[in-house]
């Protein structure tokens, strides 16, 4: 019985972790480029979030499967090739089945390759854990990222256009603040949300009290780049 519970916890833990404790958008502050760029509407945010989640899950599984095969010295280039292949697949799927989304996300789909979350999870989790756990970690992180994007997307679309998923929410008399769907709005909304986090003293990479020492990719992306390149230098 207790074994069964333990077994369940083993898989639930990475899932909850990605969703809440280490939410990539709000806690780890990773993948800022798509977070700001494609959240002009809730549906774009959802599309981007799900595409990234798909790539993350697929690459987590693949890297976890190959973790004993890939030599340690060339692991970074190997991860990059695996991630880039899945991104190309997702790009074609979107182009074939949801061309309108493909059109509006544009260049940000291939840029999923350089999203810190994916390489970060590959390095910090998938290369060290079993396939099942990596799958759950991918789902947790993927959904966590989607939720983060969706939160920003909903706020921007609501204030900037008065709609959510193109359904009119605000009364007719509401004059939309156009600026929120333009570039500056992205900065303002994210700033407001992180300030709220600070106010509520939630755990976040931006909080002074939160010390991120575990994982190679927590904290800001600069440290992620550093950890990637350090790994490369060992070659």
């Amino acid at each position, binding site marked *: 019985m207790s074994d069964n519970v333990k077994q369940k916890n083993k898989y639930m833990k990475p899932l909850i972790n990605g969703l809440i404790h280490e939410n990539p958008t709000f806690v780890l502050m990773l993948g800022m*480029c798509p977070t700001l760029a494609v959240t002009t509407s809730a549906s774009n945010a959802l599309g981007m979030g799900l595409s990234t989640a798909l790539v993350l899950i697929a690459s987590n599984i693949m890297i976890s499967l190959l973790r004993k095969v890939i030599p340690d010295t060339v692991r970074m280039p190997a991860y990059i090739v695996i991630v880039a*292949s899945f991104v190309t697949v997702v790009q074609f799927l979107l182009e074939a089945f949801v061309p309108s989304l493909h059109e509006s996300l544009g260049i940000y789909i*291939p840029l999923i390759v350089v999203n810190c979350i994916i390489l970060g999870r590959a390095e910090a989790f998938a290369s060290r854990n079993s396939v099942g756990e990596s799958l759950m970690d991918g789902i947790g992180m993927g959904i966590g990222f989607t939720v983060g994007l969706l939160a920003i997307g909903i706020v921007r679309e609501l204030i900037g256009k008065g709609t959510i998923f193109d359904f009119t929410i605000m009364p007719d008399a509401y004059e939309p603040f156009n600026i929120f769907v333009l570039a500056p709005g992205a900065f303002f909304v994210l700033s407001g949300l992180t300030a709220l986090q*600070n106010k509520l003293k939630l755990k976040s990479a931006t909080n002074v009290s939160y010390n991120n020492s575990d994982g190679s990719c927590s904290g800001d*992306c600069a*440290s992620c780049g550093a950890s990637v390149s350090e790994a490369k230098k060992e070659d």
Partner: protein
Amino acid sequence: MGELLLIIIASVLVNNVVLSQFLGICPFLGVSRKIETATGMGLAVVFVITLSSMFTNLIYNYILVNVGLEYLQTIVFILVIAALVQLVEMVLKKYSPGLYESLGVYLTLITTNCAVLGVALINVQKSYSFVESLVNGFGTAIGFLLAIVLMAGIRENSEHNDVPNSFQGTPIVLVSAGLMAMAFYGFGGLL
């Protein structure tokens, strides 16, 4: 010539890579604490983006198109960029230790800077010629340098300001970035 000038103005000011296209946000927020480091990072980016837009353009037009493997562009570009960064680092280390000393730390951070891959992909998307790619890459990188140095200047000056508790750290930086983006939005009237 007029066309090239247009590309430069568009890439430096109107479509500023950081403030309107949101590429390279991570170094923009992460390495903009001091003007000195921001300049170093900016110069390293100028160097790498200009080189990589040259190489990716040649590889795309003369290899990928010829063998009909255009769909491999993402994979090929990211590998080229990673290799290029390593190469630049090695060459600088050997032949120009002074420059390496000042740019070296930033070079390693650049592989994961999405602006580099972004520019390469935009060049393909807009089917720019070799010279146009080069100019667009250079302009974009100068735009990045401009944005990150301005940001560092703002941060140096606002460091000791009385910022509300919950806005300290990243939130106030994001607010400044938003205001800068608004200012740059005004350049839209140039074209």
